């Protein structure tokens, strides 16, 4: 276990050390003390390291994560786990805007609330939010899953492609081309798997509603001009 105290050591040393763990190494555990809202903590991880961050972080924490397990024992600023490829990122507190944006894969778990634009342009990432999410979440989401145990803000899933959205609470409004869809057995099965992977034990798949794309805005059609 390597300990980095960010009040004593530069951030670049931490990120460089995370990038230099040899393949097949046994000691892949890192602890980060005093993050104090630093930006770009634990970005660009490309191997299965485990990073425990003891406090709140600023912009772009765990960005581009590919295979690491990053846990933030606090809240995260804008763009947490942006463009994640694989691995797991867990936020014990809240996340600011565009959490998990453009993510291609992996699992992002937010135990508190997420702000606006959660999962914007998601491309395969799975996101589980235990609290509420803000407006314009999953905007132009292409694939992956967004699971929300609380409520969703305005314009959920606006201009959605094939990302699947599950919300247990209320949805303030749906965005253009986003509609409620039936929960079929395969959706309940997938949702149960996601909840289990996120460590959620107090929610059942039957309590959720599913939202997805009406597929009317994929290609321009003059009849739909008003919807853009």
């Amino acid at each position: 276990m390597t300990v980095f105290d960010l009040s004593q050591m530069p951030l670049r040393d931490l990120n460089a050390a995370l990038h230099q763990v040899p393949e097949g190494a046994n000691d892949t555990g890192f602890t980060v003390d005093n993050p104090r809202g630093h930006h770009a903590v634990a970005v660009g991880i490309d191997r299965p390291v485990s990073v425990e961050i003891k406090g709140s972080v600023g912009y772009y924490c765990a960005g581009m994560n590919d295979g690491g397990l990053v846990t933030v024992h606090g809240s995260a600023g804008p763009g947490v786990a942006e463009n994640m490829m694989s691995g797991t990122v867990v936020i014990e507190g809240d996340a600011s805007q565009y959490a998990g944006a453009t993510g291609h894969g992996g699992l992002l778990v937010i135990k508190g609330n997420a702000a606006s634009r959660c999962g914007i342009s998601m491309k395969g990432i799975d996101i589980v939010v235990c609290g509420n999410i803000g407006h314009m979440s999953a905007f132009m989401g292409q694939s992956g899953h967004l699971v929300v145990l609380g409520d969703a803000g305005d314009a959920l899933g606006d201009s959605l492609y094939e990302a699947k959205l599950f919300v247990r609470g209320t949805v303030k409004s749906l965005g253009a081309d986003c509609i409620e869809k039936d929960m079929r057995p395969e959706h309940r099965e997938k949702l149960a798997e996601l909840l289990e992977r996120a460590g959620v034990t107090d929610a059942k798949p039957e309590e959720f509603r599913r939202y997805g794309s009406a597929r009317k805005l994929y290609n321009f059609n003059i009849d739909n001009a008003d919807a853009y």
Partner: protein
Amino acid sequence: MCGIVGLFLKDRSLEPRLGALLSDMLITMTDRGPDSAGIAVYGAAKAGKAKVTVQSPDPDADFSGLEAALKAAELEAGVAVKSTHAVIEVPVEQVDRVRSVLASLRPDIRIMGSGDRVEIFKETGLPKDVVARFDVPAMSGTHGIGHTRMATESAVTTLGAHPFSTGADQCLVHNGSLSNHNNLRRELARAGVQFETQNDSEVAAAYITAEMAGGKNLGQALTSALDDLDGFFTFVVGTKSGFGVVRDPIACKPAVMAETDRYVAFGSEYRALANLPGIEMARVWEPEPATVYFWDHENAA
């Protein structure tokens, strides 16, 4: 980009440290905007007295003999010079005359703000240099707001720096950019409002002043700002006894708030709050879009 901060103290024992805490918060935000910086501090009111903070491009010439000149104009004025700024203290009933007397005596002097309690200091340069220049860390007070600027809409000048005064004991800092400020400026100018700059935030400040002059309270003025101002904004607004926060409905300009038994704090980022006493135990949250938040000493008790 810009960085904005605000601190509202509930615990009076923190008041001697207000300037130091707020300066530290602002300096932490330096890399959000290094062009200019400013701070407004609400200190203790003196019975029957009001303060006018002024600025001069040539302080040596403008401030020398100013006190005597004001007294010769039958103003019972005390002048405290701080670098390019000076705080003029006069009896409350004379405060309106200060402006006209200064206009004839020292036409280059600009008024930064006035009121019973507020003092506003702003200049081009880095926050650490600006707060040192005006000795802000030594100031005590009940609450204050600050701004560090990355200029987008107008020139990097002292007058383009924030906070902007929005009336007696009121001022505003802004992170964002307004898109309908030219039109609003024309409308307000037609109604008699005078503008010093081409800055969009000055228009926001003038708008709020005009709304409140029309009878709205600060909360109502901020609520109508949500309808009438087009563009991106996170505003932090200071008043004589409180401070308010509002974000536009898109809310892409960042904002974090923290509250403990001792204070309410605002920062563009959590980093700005990380040195505050007891922050580990604070309730920390992101203010909701299109929602007016307000704290007031007079209503809090």
